[in-house]
C-alpha cells in the first residue's frame, strides 16, 4: 500500500522535513484511514470482511465436518444443535460446507478481480501513456471485448474450457477488465501532461519507470476503489455461474453451487438455499460499502 502516496505533496514533505518550523504533516495513509473511519457502514463492512477472511483461513478448524463427509440417513435435516444450518440432500453438514465454501468463493472473487485489475491497468496505462497507434489498437480491442454480452460470453467460454476453480477465476477476470482499462487510460491521458512527468523525463527516466513509479501511483485511487467493487462483483458472478452448474463443480462447495442444490429441494429444505445466500449477500454488500467508503476517503476534492 506504500505505493499509494500523493506524489507531489510527498516530495514536499521530504524537502521540508528537516525544517523545525513546519508542523509534521499528516501522512496520506493516515488521512485516508481517518476519513474512511467516519463512514460507519464501510467500517461495518470492513469488519465483516475481516471476519470472513479469518473464517476462510481457519475453515478446517471452524467447520465441524469435512465438506465431503456424507451421511445419507440424516439427509435434509432442519437446522439443529448438531447441524447448525441443517444438512443437504446427501446428509452433508451445511454449516461445514458454507464455511469451506467461503474459502472458494472469496478466493475466486479475489483472484478474478486481481486478473481484471492487472489486465485493465496494464492495457489502460500503455494506451494512455503512449497514445497514437498503440492507444488506437488497444482501445479498439477493449471496445470489441466490451461489445460482447458479458455474462453470456462467460457461459460460452466456461462451456468450452474445463471447469476447474482456477479456470473459473481466470475466465471471470478475462471478461471483466475493459471498464477498468478505459478508466486507467483516462487517468494516464491527463497525468502524462503534468509537470512531474516532464521532470522525470528530463532526468532521463525510462518509459517503464515513468509509467509504474511516477504516473501509476497517482492514478491508484480510482483503481483501488474499482478493485474493491470488482471483488464483490466477481463473487456475485461466480455464485451465478455456480448456481447454473457452470462454475465451481461438486464436491467442492461454493456458495453458488450449494444454492444450486438447494433449488432442487426448496420445498423440503429451504435452509440449503437460505444460508449460503445470506453469506453472498452480506459479503458483496460489505465490499460495495468498503468501496464506497474508499471512494470518499481517497477523493481529494471532498473536504474534511
Amino acid at each position, binding site marked *: 500500500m506504500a505505493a499509494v502516496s500523493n506524489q507531489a505533496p510527498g516530495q514536499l514533505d521530504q524537502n521540508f522535513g528537516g525544517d523545525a518550523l513546519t508542523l509534521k504533516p499528516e501522512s496520506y495513509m493516515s488521512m485516508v484511514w481517518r476519513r474512511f473511519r467516519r463512514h460507519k457502514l464501510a467500517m461495518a463492512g470492513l469488519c465483516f470482511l475481516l471476519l470472513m477472511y479469518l473464517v476462510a483461513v481457519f475453515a478446517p478448524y471452524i467447520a465441524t465436518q469435512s465438506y465431503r463427509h456424507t451421511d445419507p440417513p440424516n439427509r435434509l435435516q432442519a437446522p439443529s444443535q448438531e447441524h447448525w444450518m441443517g444438512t443437504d440432500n446427501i446428509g452433508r453438514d451445511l454449516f461445514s460446507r458454507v464455511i469451506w465454501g467461503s474459502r472458494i468463493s472469496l478466493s475466486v472473487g479475489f483472484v478474478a478481480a486481481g486478473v481484471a485489475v492487472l489486465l485493465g491497468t496494464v492495457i489502460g496505462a500503455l494506451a494512455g501513456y503512449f497514445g497514437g497507434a498503440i492507444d488506437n489498437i488497444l482501445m479498439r480491442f477493449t471496445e470489441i*471485448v466490451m*461489445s*460482447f*454480452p458479458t455474462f*453470456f460470453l462467460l*457461459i460460452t467460454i466456461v462451456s468450452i474450457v474445463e471447469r476447474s476453480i482456477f479456470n473459473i477465476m481466470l475466465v471471470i477476470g478475462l471478461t471483466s477488465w475493459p471498464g477498468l482499462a478505459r478508466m486507467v487510460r483516462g487517468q494516464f491521458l491527463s497525468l502524462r501532461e503534468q509537470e512531474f512527468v516532464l521532470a522525470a523525463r528530463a532526468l532521463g527516466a525510462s518509459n517503464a519507470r515513468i509509467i509504474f513509479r511516477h504516473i501509476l501511483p497517482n492514478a491508484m485511487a480510482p483503481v483501488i476503489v474499482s478493485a474493491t467493487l470488482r471483488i464483490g462483483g466477481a463473487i456475485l458472478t461466480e455464485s451465478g455461474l455456480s*448456481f447454473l452448474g457452470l462454475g465451481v463443480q461438486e464436491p467442492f462447495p461454493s456458495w453458488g453451487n450449494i444454492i444450486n442444490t*438447494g433449488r432442487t429441494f426448496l420445498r423440503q429444505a429451504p435452509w440449503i438455499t437460505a444460508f449460503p445466500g445470506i453469506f453472498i*449477500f452480506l459479503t458483496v454488500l460489505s465490499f460495495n460499502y468498503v468501496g*464506497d467508503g474508499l471512494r470518499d476517503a481517497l477523493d481529494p476534492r471532498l473536504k474534511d
Partner: protein
Amino acid sequence: MLNYVIRRLLQIIPLLIGISIINFTIMHLAPGDPVLLLTERNAPPEEVARIRALYGLDDPIYVQYFRWLKQILKGDFGRSFVDGRPVVDHIMDRLPYTLYLNFVVMIIIYALAIPIGNISALRQYSLFDHVVTFFAFLGQALPSFWFALLLIYAVGIKSDWLPITGVATIGVSLKRHGLWTVLVDRAKHLILPVTVVSLGSMAGITRYMRSSMLEVIRQDYIRTARAKGLPEKVVIRKHALRNALLPIVTLVGMELPILFSGSVIIETIFSWPGLGLLSIRAVFQRDYQIVMALNMIGALLMVAGNFLSDILYVLVDPRIKYS
C-alpha cells in the same frame, strides 16, 4: 450532423470485424468435431471425409471464416447441431417472450427510478434519500437467483398466491375463458420475474438520475431562474428536470441490447421460454451454432445501442458539438 453520423458508422466497421473474428475463433476452439454430430455413430471414414468436404471443413481456416461471414451478412446463422432447425427459427421462437418480459421491466424501472432519483436529489441527505441509497446498495448486492428463490418459497410454495413458472397457465385461452381471465393470468405470471429483474437494475438508474439531478441544480441557470422569482415548482419542472433527464434519454440507447438479451439466470429459475433459456440449453447441449449466433447478435445490438445513444446525446443536447 450527417458528417458525424457517417464517421461514427465508419468507426463501427473495424469493430464489427473484430467481433466476428473473436466469435469465430471461440467457435473453433470449442471441443467436439461437428462432423461427428452430423454423421452416424459408426460411419465409415470415407463417409466422414465426404461430409467434411461437403461442409467445407477441409478448407483453410480463413476460407471458412469468410464463408461464415458471408452467411451471417445474409442473415443466415446456420442450423442447430441438435435438431437441424435453422438457428434463426429457434431465435424467433424465443425472442417474443424475452421482449415481452424486458419491455414490462423497462417501463417499470424507468417509471419508478426517475421520480425516486429525482426526489432523492431534491431532498439530498433527507431520511428519504438515505433510505433510497440504502435500498440501492441492497439491490446491487442481492444475488438475483437467491432473491428469486426466496420469493418463490414465500409466495409460491408456502402460500399459493402466485404461479412460479412459465408465461401463462396451460389451457387458459382466449376462446374458453375470455380476455379478462387471460390478462389476469398473464399478469400473475409476470409479477415474480418482473420484481426480481427490476429490483436488480433499478438501483443503478436511480443513482444515475439522482446524481444527474444533483449536478443540474447546482448550475448557474437554476440560480438565475430562482433569482428572477420563478416559483420553485417551475424551476424544478421546467428548468432542472428537463436537463437532468438528458443523460437518462441516452441510456435508452443502451436499453436496446438489454431488451433483446434474455437474463439467463432469471429465465432459468422461472422457466421463462425466452432467449436466456435458449442460450443455457444450447450451452449445455454444446449447440455451438446457437451459442455463437446469440453472442454475435448480442454484440451487434450492443454496438448499435452505443451508436444510438451517441446520436441521441447529440440530438437532445444542443450544447454538445458533434465535431
